[in-house]
């Protein structure tokens, strides 16, 4: 290997590095006391996540904080590497939306070892072995409330028969999905006289899967008249299946299927307004975002290295009954009206 070769190799690097260096240069404004927070998320596939992402990033930036966004694209390993890189960059704090409970535990552990406060948004770690700031909605309670209202509607119809319920279940790797299912079944158990054994349709949080499975379920059980979806973002698929069967009817129309969901996005709001949907469990997205950010910033301020606090978002059920007063508490409503 001679001088020429060495020089040439380095020269060849020039092109690559000028480009790359140029890109990095444009981002060079490190203010000494500016805080940097890494926000790691998993794709932004539903309105909930989009709104959440927007809420978090805009609020932080409005406070003059530098936000490093990292999209892990639903790959737990990638998120681990991204957070490690962020730790190496010595960020002041981390917020993550993990892919699942297990990887959350591992990633929180990394932050703990580095002494950087970390907050987990909406999807809790599967155990408390590693301390973190966690905000999670009480999905079970919220689902329970929503479905309880739906049951009330069914009872009030007084048709003296058993209703045939169906639940679209989320990806059971997601604790939230498990909790929502539990809330639904709580109501079922409390009203054994009102309901037959519920049909469970897996969605895996994927629209195409939902469509296929729901179609099959309704073919096998055409008399379903009570339907709860674990997430509002699946309403388009539900409509696509129910409408051709003549089951997509408003509340006062004959053949109306008692319909409820959870999340509280703008679609749910619209459908409730139009009268197709009876109730929606609402996660208070903005409350969750603000709470978690405040907790994280407070921890950073106080110099805490491994803060631990599990916070609850009690949420509530928006129903046809209380819609008039409480609609504006629904984040989907606010998203709709902010635009």
């Amino acid at each position, binding site marked *: 290997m001679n001088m020429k070769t060495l020089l040439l190799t380095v020269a060849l*690097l020039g092109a690559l590095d000028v480009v*790359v260096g140029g890109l990095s240069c444009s981002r060079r404004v490190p203010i000494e006391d500016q805080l940097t927070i890494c926000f790691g998320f998993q794709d932004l596939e539903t309105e909930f996540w989009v709104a959440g992402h927007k809420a978090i990033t805009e609020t932080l930036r409005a406070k003059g904080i530098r936000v490093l966004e990292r999209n892990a694209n639903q790959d*737990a390993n990638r998120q681990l590497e991204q957070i490690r890189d962020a730790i190496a*960059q010595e960020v002041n704090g981390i917020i993550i939306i993990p892919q699942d409970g*297990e990887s959350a535990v591992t990633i929180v552990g990394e932050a703990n070892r*580095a002494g950087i406060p970390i907050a987990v948004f909406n999807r809790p770690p599967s155990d408390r072995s590693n301390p973190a700031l966690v905000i999670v909605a009480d999905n079970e309670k919220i689902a329970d409330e929503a479905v309880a209202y739906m049951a009330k509607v069914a009872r009030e119809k007084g048709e003296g028969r058993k209703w045939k319920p169906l639940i679209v279940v989320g990806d059971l790797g997601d604790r939230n999905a498990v909790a929502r299912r539990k809330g639904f079944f709580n109501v079922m158990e409390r009203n054994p006289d009102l309901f037959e054994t519920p049909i469970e349709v897996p969605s895996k949080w994927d629209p195409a899967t939902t469509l296929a499975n729901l179609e099959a379920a309704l073919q096998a059980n055409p008399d379903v008249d009570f339907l709860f979806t674990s997430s509002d973002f699946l309403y388009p698929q539900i409509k696509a299946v129910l409408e051709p069967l003549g089951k997509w009817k408003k509340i006062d129309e004959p053949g109306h299927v008692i319909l409820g969901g959870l999340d509280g996005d703008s679609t749910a709001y619209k459908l409730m307004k139009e009268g197709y949907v009876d109730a929606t469990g609402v996660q208070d997205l903005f409350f969750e975002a603000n709470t978690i950010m405040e907790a994280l910033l407070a921890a950073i301020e106080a110099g805490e290295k491994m803060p631990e606090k599990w916070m609850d978002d009690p949420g509530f059920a928006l129903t046809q009954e209380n819609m008039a007063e409480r609609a504006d508490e629904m984040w989907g409503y606010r998203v709709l009206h902010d635009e």
Partner: protein
Amino acid sequence: MQSSDSVTSQTRLACLREVVIGRVLLSDSFVLFLSVAYFLVLWIFLPRLGSARNLSNLSSNIWPLLVLVIGQMFVLIVGGIDLSQTSVMAITSVCGALMMTSGLDPELFARNPLWGVLIGEQGGPAGGSAAAAPVGIAFMLAIGMLIGSANGLAVARLKMPPFMVTLVSMFFFSGLAIFITRSENVRNLPDAFLAIGQSYLGRVPTGRGSVGLVPYSFFAALALAVAAWFVLARTILGRWLYAVGMNRRAATVSGVPTDRVIVWAYAVSGFCAALGSVLYSSRLGAGRPTLGENVLLDVIGAAVIGGISLFGGKGKVRWAFYGVLFFVLLDSSLYMLNLKFYTVNIVKGVVILVAALLDVLRNRIRLGRAPTGRAVAA
């Protein structure tokens, strides 16, 4: 005077071309130079690149990927390709975890096909015992080799194209992994197992605490690399692998047991995928049916960048290392620049494309450069 000047400048130009092509492009260690130079130049813009923590991160990202690339290299050398490495990772992760786990949540696993048969609330068959980790790991490696051998048999005996065989494998086993666990992650793995991916030998103090020095996964990768080098450079099987990759027909005529050699190559690839699964699963702390979903591009990309030819007959362990080194460096530096993830993918794609083109170019130059042709096996 004029003409001799132009003559010398002409010869200089020719000399320069000769050096560029001969020494740099065709050089074995081209990618190593590239990596080192890239690192040095980039360090100027990003001083954090050289921090202890960052180097530790880079290091722990390199070893599991290296394990996979070494496996893929064996298959590339015989002129094939193994697309099923990702699903072998998934299925071994899941099977090993189910074997080793010391507790399963009935709410999540009650409807699992194996519930009550092989797994229960107390975990898997080896769960809770002292030998859980070694048994689980051995189980994983065995499954990996088995699947690899099946792939190899299909390619060698049934004469099916490797692309097709391993693609089918990939779909089948990743589906099987999800089926076996109903897409749940399997937790409660023994500490001994988790230590492999998460613990380090020695620590180095940094500004905020300390950082691991040598991850245990390094030792696994090192052992594999040494074994792979030995086979390729010093054994008959190694020579047979190169022969089959260079010219399968000539190898057969010359008495090389071509079929057996091909099966071995794929078996090794399956084994390495399983070993990689051990490293990644322990790192993430669970058996995952979706493990390694996106890693195939990285594996093949690193292999191609390192100079392992997609056409077969060429490949060395240290090239695999150079390729992985550059790739991990590139990957990590791109994220460090806060580029959006799709930009990162685009850049990675372009780099791999350039590397593949370089492979074709080098092949063509080599074919045309009769007098100073060099041999390629170790």
